[in-house]
């Protein structure tokens, strides 16, 4: 789960990383008031979860409280990459002399924590890694041992800083590591970590991603997880299946993430366009299958629904029952293509054929059929 910048900065403050003074504004009036409090000038930052808001006009500088009011009027309600701006972080302006980079991530390749730092911040770090990797230092931390002084020394020595700044960076690194561990982070990033005109280190931006699987021990964020999702994704999550929206017209349901992805890929391979990814998981009963199928049959974009089930702990008869129910309620003008093999296959196929549906044995054949049907449905004048 991604945190908003203001949530990340609140966490940082809690862990003694001092961030520029800020408050959250939900109305232009609040933006004016906060700017007044900050001494008449401020930076207004759209609180969205998508990356790259700066380039898309999501960050504005106000020279007066009235200007803050005017800017906030424009910013609030605007959309950045499809995400609506509901609040603004209104913050004191930092006079930036130099920009550094600091982040902590879970490193999948080595199965450890890694700290990344660079004396060039404020830019896209992947780009820097590709362009001039020598400007980047990566320090691995064994999670069983934790962050040690020598790890931090390697980072501070790399950065070309004064002794006082080194001390400041040491504290920030240590505290950021604490945030990272205490909040089960996948990423904790400060980019840029500014050096201001007085030579102080100031975190200008903050990015934190928390592992969804750890939210059970971070209840304060557990409810917030829905903010990132659209309506369908929320409904899917409530029923316990994974859902991702794509832009095609062939709805996809499978059991198991790999199989469902492979089904999408086949649709594309045969010239069709998948509308979504929906994995019902293992052992789904009829009611869950019905919910999943109904969700897609109701979806205006979906013309054909392709269901690919290889039954192990999932029983084909349960799947068939769920599909027939969904089709009776929502399937009037949609086509259904089913591939069904595995546990209780015979019973499942019988239930389907009683409802006038024949099932495929091979997922390749089913995918081809779905693509053909989508073509036919598409040219139909309705």
């Amino acid at each position, binding site marked *: 789960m991604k945190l908003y910048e203001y949530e990340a900065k609140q966490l940082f403050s809690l862990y003694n990383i001092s961030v520029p003074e800020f408050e959250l504004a939900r109305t232009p009036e609040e933006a004016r008031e906060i700017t007044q409090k900050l001494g008449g000038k401020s930076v207004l930052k759209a609180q969205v979860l998508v990356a790259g808001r700066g380039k898309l006009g999501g960050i504005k500088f106000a020279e007066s409280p009235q200007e803050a009011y005017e800017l906030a009027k424009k910013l609030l309600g605007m959309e950045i990459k499809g995400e609506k701006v509901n609040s603004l972080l209104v913050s004191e302006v930092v006079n930036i002399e130099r920009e550094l980079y600091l982040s902590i991530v*879970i490193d999948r390749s080595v199965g450890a924590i890694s700290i990344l730092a660079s004396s060039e911040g404020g830019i896209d770090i992947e780009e820097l890694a590709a362009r001039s990797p020598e400007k980047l230092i990566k320090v691995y931390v064994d999670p069983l041992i934790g962050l040690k002084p020598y790890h931090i020394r390697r980072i501070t020595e790399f950065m070309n800083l004064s002794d006082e700044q080194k001390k400041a960076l040491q504290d920030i690194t240590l505290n950021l590591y604490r945030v990272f561990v205490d909040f089960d982070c996948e990423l904790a990033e400060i980019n840029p970590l500014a050096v201001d005109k007085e030579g102080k280190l100031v975190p200008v931006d903050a990015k934190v991603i928390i592992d969804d699987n750890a939210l059970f021990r971070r209840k304060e964020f557990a409810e917030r997880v829905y903010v990132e999702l659209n309506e369908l994704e929320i409904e899917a999550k409530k029923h316990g299946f994974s859902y991702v929206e794509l832009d095609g017209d062939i709805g996809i349901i499978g059991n198991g993430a790999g199989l469902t992805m492979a089904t999408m890929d*086949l649709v594309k391979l045969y010239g069709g366009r998948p509308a979504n990814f929906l994995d019902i998981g*293992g052992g789904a009963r009829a009611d869950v299958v019905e919910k999943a199928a109904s969700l897609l049959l109701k979806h205006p974009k979906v013309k054909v629904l392709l269901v690919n089930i290889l039954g*192990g*702990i999932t029983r084909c008869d349960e799947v068939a029952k769920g599909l027939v129910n969904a089709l009776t309620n929502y399937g009037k003008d949609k086509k259904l293509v089913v591939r069904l093999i595995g546990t209780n296959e015979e019973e499942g196929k019988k239930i389907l054929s009683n409802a006038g549906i024949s099932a495929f044995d091979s997922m*390749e054949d089913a995918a081809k059929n779905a693509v053909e049907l989508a073509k036919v449905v598409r040219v139909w004048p309705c």
Partner: protein
Amino acid sequence: MAVLVDKNTYVVVQGITGREGSFHTKAMLDYGTKVVAGVTPGKGGQSVHGIPVYDSIYEAVSKHQEINTSIIFVPSSYAPDAVYEAIDAGIDIIVLITEHIPVHDSMKFIRYAKLRGVCIIGPNCPGIISPGESKVGIMPGHVFSKGTIGIVSRSGTLTYEVAYAITKMRLGQSTAVGIGGDPITGMSMIDMLELFREDDETKAVVLIGEIGGDMEERAAEYIRRSGYEKPVVAFVAGRTAPPGKRMGHAGAIISMGTGDAESKVRVFEASGVKVASTPTEVAKLLKEILKG
């Protein structure tokens, strides 16, 4: 021969009294797996499908000294404790079925297991099967058949799909291992390639990858550098997956510009690994390679 599990595998089921644990204990017994004990703290003295249940793994191991493998069905918030207990009790191979374990936890117990020389399969995996010998997992046994192909996969049902195609081609499997769909797993593709290299029964290896991370890229690099002697066929799921979205598995996400399917396919091909475009094609490619 097979790898990891065979006729000499003696299994303790951790979380045996739960719904999943009990269901799959029955399925494993039906398959012929030597399940000898179960553990659920507080439920010692009961029995599940005729298998005695103990309060701790220490007790189970002292009563059944032949135990060398554990399979874990414990819910995610308790699973790390179960893993540490199994490692400390001297279990050689731990199959961790549980999904949704926080990655900070799995990262730690996986490192601990490595230091202690213990092999962890998973988390978030279907387990291991050596057809005709032993099944320590949740896969449907009937889609597998004894044969010469080693399978390594980050997926569950997709593994069964490919295994079924291989079975229909009359090639069969030596051992099939689902290493798990999480970002960090105990055994990697490279670890499995090394085991299959030493296994005489295995004539070719199938790698079933998906988007996210760079495990496939590292496996490809390993195959090329080590001059891997056995033919390898790969399949990569998620060619149509959008970046930044988690596709079911915690580990299946294209993030920070890495982990997309096309680049994995490219690296495999550059390392001499044949990449199938459909699950059925995996079996066809194997047939062609092994004929020639």
